[in-house]
């Protein structure tokens, strides 16, 4: 008897020619494709600095931002990215509408399908939601994962990679530490995949055991439980947001204890390399995971991450749409022949 197949991520998000048609996860993608995303994004970064910020790559296309989970910054950067690509944008905050009326995700999807959108940007609290949606949309609709549960936040990871590349260039000599709530973090998981694929020398996670998922080392990271050892000689420090709800369970005793042990202060930063950069996906909790002076200091690249976020989202949206169009053409040709 044959067992169910292992990884098929490729077939879901790539065309047979290896082009992006959805962007659901970084896992399983090739280094060349990640570099293509970064290169494309870099060209949009330059463009954003100019007077005329629009390109017509998605003209006539409709992008629906389906946010089943509240978000301000991710939603606004996706909106801005779509508009700079000349798309029409529809923002749907679904967490407060249909699902509270008992509509299933499948039904919501069928309704949206009938509106003939060309791209869905999806954020959902359930891991795998973007995969589910990609499997159930009509063939020509591209799905971009804007964060699903604890699983993946691939555009965030790619904007982080762009930021790292702008500062450090080559990934192969980099030691990167990710600090904080790894357990609940889709950002950390996507960063780990991206750093591995881009060839980072060493990826570390630093957290107490309660904030580390079991077998995290199987993702190719080194686990540290203390900052002094974990930050030693790192080139990049990525701090994760600590959600205050975590204090209400047995995960952590208090914010102050967490800050004392794992908060990034000037003192702890001294363990890292002198030219180490500090990153954070935002929004930051000053005095919980990071000291204000570090967040605002010269080594912090947090605001640059935001700027890069728009460029990376433009890149991914335009690439996925072009993959869909190419596939559509091939299908039409096949049907015509």
């Amino acid at each position, binding site marked *: 008897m044959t067992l*169910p197949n*292992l990884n098929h991520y490729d077939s879901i998000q790539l065309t047979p020619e290896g082009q992006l048609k959805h962007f659901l996860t970084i*896992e399983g993608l090739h280094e060349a494709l990640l570099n293509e995303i970064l290169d494309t994004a870099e060209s949009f970064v330059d463009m954003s600095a100019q007077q005329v910020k629009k390109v017509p790559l998605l003209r006539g296309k409709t992008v629906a931002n389906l946010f089943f989970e509240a978000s301000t910054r991710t939603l606004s950067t996706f909106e801005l990215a779509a508009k700079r690509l000349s798309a029409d944008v529809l923002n749907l905050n679904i967490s407060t509408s249909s699902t509270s009326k008992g509509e299933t995700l499948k039904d919501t999807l069928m309704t949206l399908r009938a509106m003939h959108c060309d791209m869905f940007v999806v954020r959902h609290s359930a891991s795998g939601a973007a*995969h589910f949606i990609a499997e159930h949309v009509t063939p020509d609709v591209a799905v971009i994962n804007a964060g699903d549960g*604890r699983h993946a936040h691939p555009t965030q990871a790619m904007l982080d990679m762009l930021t790292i590349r702008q500062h450090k260039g080559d990934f192969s000599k980099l030691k990167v530490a990710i600090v904080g709530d790894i357990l609940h973090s889709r950002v950390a998981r996507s960063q780990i995949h991206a750093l591995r694929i881009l060839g980072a020398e060493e990826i570390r996670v630093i957290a107490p055991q309660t904030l580390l998922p079991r077998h995290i080392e199987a993702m190719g990271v080194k686990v540290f439980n203390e900052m002094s050892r974990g930050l030693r000689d790192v080139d990049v420090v990525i701090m994760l947001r600590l959600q205050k709800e975590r204090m209400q369970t047995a995960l952590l005793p208090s914010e102050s204890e967490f800050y004392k042990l794992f908060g990034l202060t000037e003192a702890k930063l001294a363990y890292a390399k002198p030219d180490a950069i500090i990153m954070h996906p935002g929004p930051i909790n000053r005095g919980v995971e990071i000291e204000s002076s570090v967040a605002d200091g010269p080594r912090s690249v947090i605001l640059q991450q935001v700027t890069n976020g728009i460029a990376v989202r433009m890149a991914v949206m335009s690439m996925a749409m072009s993959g869909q169009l190419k596939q559509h053409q091939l299908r039409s040709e096949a049907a015509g022949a």
Partner: protein
Amino acid sequence: MNIKITGGRIIDPATGLDEITDLYIRDGEIFAIGEPSHALHYDEVIDVTGKVVAPGFIDLCAHLREPGETHKGSIASETAAAAAGGITTLVTPPTTRPIVDTPAVAELIQDRAADAGFSRVMPMGALTQGLQGEQLAPLHALTGSGCIAFTNARLPVKNTLSLLRCLEYAATFDLLVVFQAQDDSLTHTGCMHEGANATRMGLSGIPEAAETIEVSRCLLLVEQTGVRAHFGQLSCERSVQLVHAAQQRGLQVTADVAAHQLILSDEQVNEFDSSLHLHPPLRSALDRAGLIQGILSGAVTAICSDHQPQDLISKQAPFAETAPGLSGLETLLPLCLSLVERKLIELPHLIEKLTVAPANILGLESGTLQEGKPADICIFDPNAEWVVSDESIRSAGKNTPLKGKLLKGRVTTTLLGGRIVYRSS
């Protein structure tokens, strides 16, 4: 009606019989094997050359969804599926709506099963009223209404004193208590085994301890009360070890595992395929090896289907939001036969785990082909290949991770009390 079944390999683990010979049925009972003492007229002669004739399978856990969730399956649809899977007796948990905590519900289930006529259905009664874990259900009355055993399903009796009282009361009447061990707080929102794959996919994990802690707690109380106890659908190697140690100390405990747990592991749970969202979850490959080892050592007494049919919509959502379970009645035999194919177990030993072993756990005299016993018989072709599809399975639940897979081994005929209740086309 008299039937002669000729040319098959007859395997009856209860008697150690394994030979190619004939079997005769008279008036619903096994009349003879080999040569009958006197000649009979046969209404039908079934030539089963190349096939295996075994006692009908006894499945220790199959959800039928009736009453209460008939959009997922009915007693008629699921017992028909059982017949197609060679299962002639099945035990069904009390988690219907209403719950089996009154004689009326127990009787309703058996009446509907008798009307359908495909297989014998034996309800398990609720151990506590409403499965709430507080007040004892009327165990004695429920036994009188045909409940074969008692369980609180996967809703543990949290209050240990209440659980102790339940077991003492059950022991009073020598009733069988079935544990589907699962610690509530450790299971929490988990939807798959807490392993590397759960971490990678960002799914909440269910640690082994969710099962082993509850197994340990129950074993200690079984030891104190002396109640007859059975552990259903163990998923962890460590649980098997705990049960094995208890058996070696002389406790009256038995255990079963679901067939799919012997074949699949959490490594197959990829890409959020909701057909692999199971409860208990598929564990690690090491656990799977431990379960197989438990079968071989005898610590694991029986193999069941843990059939949990779901309708389409219940499986169409992001992984964690889907309903757990797989439709397992019709894949029970081929999954088990793959262990024989891989030379992990001998065919007669396997059939024992599906027939006389579960019969002994339940205190039934069936599960054997001895003369005078009801002719509950499963005839299967161990080499027949078939593809699992919505069309090829009869259960209303099409939720199987094996869809599209080529399986080997298929039931050709099932007899219940000498009546043909399934015949492959």
